[in-house]
Each structure stands twice: as structure tokens, then as C-alpha cells.
């Protein structure tokens, strides 16, 4: 029963994506809407990304120091471990799980409200491809801006760790700075960016899907918003495993 329902949902999602990835009726309108979505979904998320990254970076550094008390381990390994955690998991998977809550619920509730207030029907009756008009700018805008958020996240997390070194006596600034530069693997940055692009696509498209097919009223819009966050979070975790296996092993 669950399998049948899941397959049905997946089929409907594919049809929805086919409609979404049609050529826009007006490229100028599409361009304008994409810029608006970058501002709404991307730029507006920067403060949240900065706050979370700063604190998580600081906490990572403290915990690394507290949990690596072995005298054989060099002190700079705190910085090194913090950097790798941020590059490999935090700046993409964990950040996207957080953004699935903010951006995903925003998209699902916006499109869901448009559905229940017949605004999507109005677009369809005018002859506008509503899925393409509403969803494509969101997907493209968010996917384009996600690497920028990832870079912000990496920078601020490492800054959070630096603050711990600067304002506490847990680790010296010199050792922390040396640690975040030691044994640097460039591929980890690309790996993180590739993952964040895939996750951004999942968040924007899955949330749009749930919003687009809302039936009923305000209560159903709320449910769609919850479904959007839950399903995109699960898909992010699933694709995290798949991409890690494919890209790192």
C-alpha cells in the first residue's frame, strides 16, 4: 500500500517536473522572476546561515578539543577536524536540512496558498504553464545561489572556530589556523558543492510539488508545508549516502 502510494507520488512528481522544465513563455519574465527568487530564497537566508554556521563552527572546535585528549594527537588536529566536518557534512547536508525547513516550507505554503485561492487555476485558464511559470524560477534561483550559501557557511563556521581560539584558552590561534590549512584536499570543496546543488534541487522541487497539488484549504496548506519539509529532509539524507558513496569512495 505504502509502496503503491510512493510510486504514484513519484510518477506525479515526474510529470510535474516535465511540465516545470518546459521552455518559458517569456524569457524576460523568467529572468525577472529568477532574480526575485534568488533574493527571496537565497539572499534572505544569509543571516540564518551566518548565525547557525558561526555557532556550530565554535561548538565543533570546542568538542573536538574536549574529545581528542590523546597526547599523541597534534594540537592542530582540532582545526583540521573542524574544517573537514564543515567541508564534508555541515556546509552541505546539515545546512540543507536546516534550509529545507526555512525555504521548503516557504515555497510549499506560497504555492499551496496560490492553489487554494485559485491563482494557479487563473494562470492555467489564461494559457500560462503554471508549473513552469511558478516553479522553474524557484528551482533555478535556489540551485544557482546554493553554492554561495555553502561558501558563506564554510567561511563563517571556520570563523566561529577562530573565535573560540581567540577568546578562550582551549586552543591557540596559531595552532587552529595551522590546523585548518593542514592536509587540505581540494576535492572536498567540490564534493560539498556538488552535494549542495543536488540538495537545493530536492528542496525547491519537492516543496513546489507538495504546494502545487494541495487540495482543500488552509489546513491542507499547513500539511503540505510539513510534508515538504519531511520528504525533502528524508531525500537529502538518502542522497547524502548515495553521493558520498559515488564521490568519495
Amino acid at each position: 500500500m505504502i509502496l503503491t502510494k510512493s510510486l504514484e507520488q513519484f510518477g506525479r512528481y515526474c510529470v510535474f517536473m516535465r511540465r516545470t522544465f518546459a521552455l518559458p513563455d517569456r524569457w524576460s519574465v523568467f529572468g525577472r522572476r529568477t532574480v526575485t527568487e534568488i533574493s527571496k530564497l537565497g539572499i534572505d537566508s544569509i543571516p540564518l546561515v551566518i548565525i547557525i554556521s558561526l555557532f556550530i563552527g565554535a561548538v565543533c572546535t570546542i568538542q573536538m578539543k574536549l574529545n581528542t585528549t590523546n597526547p599523541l594527537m597534534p594540537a592542530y588536529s582540532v582545526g583540521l577536524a573542524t574544517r573537514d566536518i564543515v567541508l564534508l557534512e555541515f556546509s552541505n547536508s546539515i545546512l540543507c536540512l536546516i534550509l529545507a525547513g526555512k525555504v521548503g516550507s516557504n515555497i510549499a505554503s506560497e504555492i499551496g496558498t496560490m492553489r487554494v485561492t485559485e491563482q494557479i487555476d487563473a494562470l492555467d485558464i489564461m494559457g500560462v504553464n503554471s508549473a513552469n511559470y511558478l516553479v522553474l524560477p524557484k528551482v533555478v534561483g535556489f540551485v544557482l545561489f546554493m553554492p554561495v550559501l555553502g561558501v558563506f557557511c564554510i567561511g563563517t563556521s571556520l570563523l566561529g572556530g577562530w573565535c573560540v581560539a581567540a577568546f578562550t584558552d582551549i586552543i591557540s590561534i596559531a595552532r587552529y589556523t595551522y590546523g585548518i590549512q593542514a592536509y587540505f584536499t581540494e576535492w572536498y570543496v567540490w564534493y560539498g558543492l556538488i552535494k549542495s546543488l543536488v540538495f537545493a534541487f530536492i528542496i525547491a522541487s519537492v516543496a513546489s510539488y507538495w504546494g502545487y497539488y494541495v487540495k482543500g484549504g488552509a489546513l491542507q496548506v499547513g500539511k503540505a508545508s510539513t510534508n515538504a519539509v519531511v520528504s525533502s529532509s528524508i531525500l537529502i539524507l538518502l542522497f547524502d549516502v548515495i553521493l558520498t558513496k559515488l564521490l568519495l569512495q
Partner: protein
Amino acid sequence: MIEVKNVTKSFDDKTILHDVSAKFYTGKTNLIIGQSGSGKTVLMKSIIGLVRPEQGEILYDGRNLLDMKERQVKELRKEIGMLFQGSALFDSETVLGNVMFPLMMFTGMSRAEQLDRARFCLERVNLQGAENKYPSEISGGMQKRVAIARAIALNPRYLFCDEPNSGLDPKTSILIDELLHDITHEYNITTIINTHDMNSVLGIGENIIFLNKGHREWVGDKDKIFTTANEALNEFVFATRLFQEVKDYIIEHGQKG
């Protein structure tokens, strides 16, 4: 003219429309009336193409909607204006932005021309001075007028209105009815209005189709509706307390006289 021929539509096992046929004339206000659940909305959705009937024909000046390809339906929709029950204005756009929307999407007009046309449409519905307001900042009646302005922006050949008076006070309802009636005659549009408002029926009912339990039971105009022998229609017409009291008064005084 729009002609509906033998349209049948079911949802699951329940048949909502039974072999319905009707003609909607150009330059006339055509009303679909009936109680809630009679199939009015399904009939209108079938005519617009939001719902696909199992059988029948829907002819737009001879062109069968059900035989059209996706591209042809898209082209046809550019000839259609629609006024939704809840107005369905885009929240993120101003009043002017809403009226300009179809012009921006479907015409090669310059921005100045779009502005001129949008302002003309807003003037036509007596709504000057609200151009820069958002839908949430204006009244329900004004929202309906903006929706009418948006619907006529592309000079449609067909205008559909789903319960245009719902949620409006009687005075504003009459204004909206008169506006729809005037626009229909002025631009020679085929207008189809889905309503259960008797004021609208008596005010602008030039061609009335009465639906009862999914069957087309009566066709006529506002002058014939009070003299019909159709029981279901009589029940519908005299369902309001006001009409019932007027009827009782006439019967009582008629007997005395």
C-alpha cells in the same frame, strides 16, 4: 456562441452531469443557475476545459474543445477571460500589475502600451486611483472589478464568471452585474455566469439554463422564469424569504381583489 452537446461527467461512481446540452449566445449574458450540488461548477469547468467529460461536445464557435490538441487549447485560452469566485488576483502583484499580467505574457506590447491598456481597463470598471495598491489592501467589490479588468485586458471573445456576487453586499452585486452586462454588449462577448443569486437572474438573465441534479431542466430568460411550470425551478426561485413573501402577498391580495 458556445454550444454544449450531450455532456456527461462522473466522479468515481457518481454522475454529476447527465447528457447536458445547452447554447450560450454571443452578446448575451448567459446564466447557469441551480442549487448547490446541481452541477453548475462542473459544467463550467467542463466548458473551460479544467474537467474532461466522458462524452459529449463543447463547441466554441464550431471548434470542439475536446478534439483540440494541447497547443490549440492554449491558443483558445487566450480568447478566454475568467472571473473567479474569490477573484484569484495575484497577491504579489499590485492592481496594475494584475491587469498588466496577461498583456505582458501574451502580447508584444511595449511597457508604455501595456500601462495604457491596463489603465483603460481599470477606468472601464471605474477603478481609478487604486493602481498601486495590493489586492489585500482593497475591498471585495474592488477585487472583483480588478478581476474583471484583468479578464477583459486581452479583449476576450468568451468571458466566464463563477459566482461573481458571492461575498458582496446587494448594492455592489448590482454594480458588478451591470458591469458584466454592459461589457458583454459593448464588446459582443459570449458571457457565461454561474450563479444562484436571484437578483442577478432577474437583473441580467438574458439566457438562463437551469440545472437540477445534473440534468438541464429548463431554458429561458428572466421574463419567463416566474411563469414556469417547472416545479424544481419554482422551488429554487422562491427559496428566498423575500420572494416567498412577495409571492404570498400577491396571492393574498389577488384573492381579496
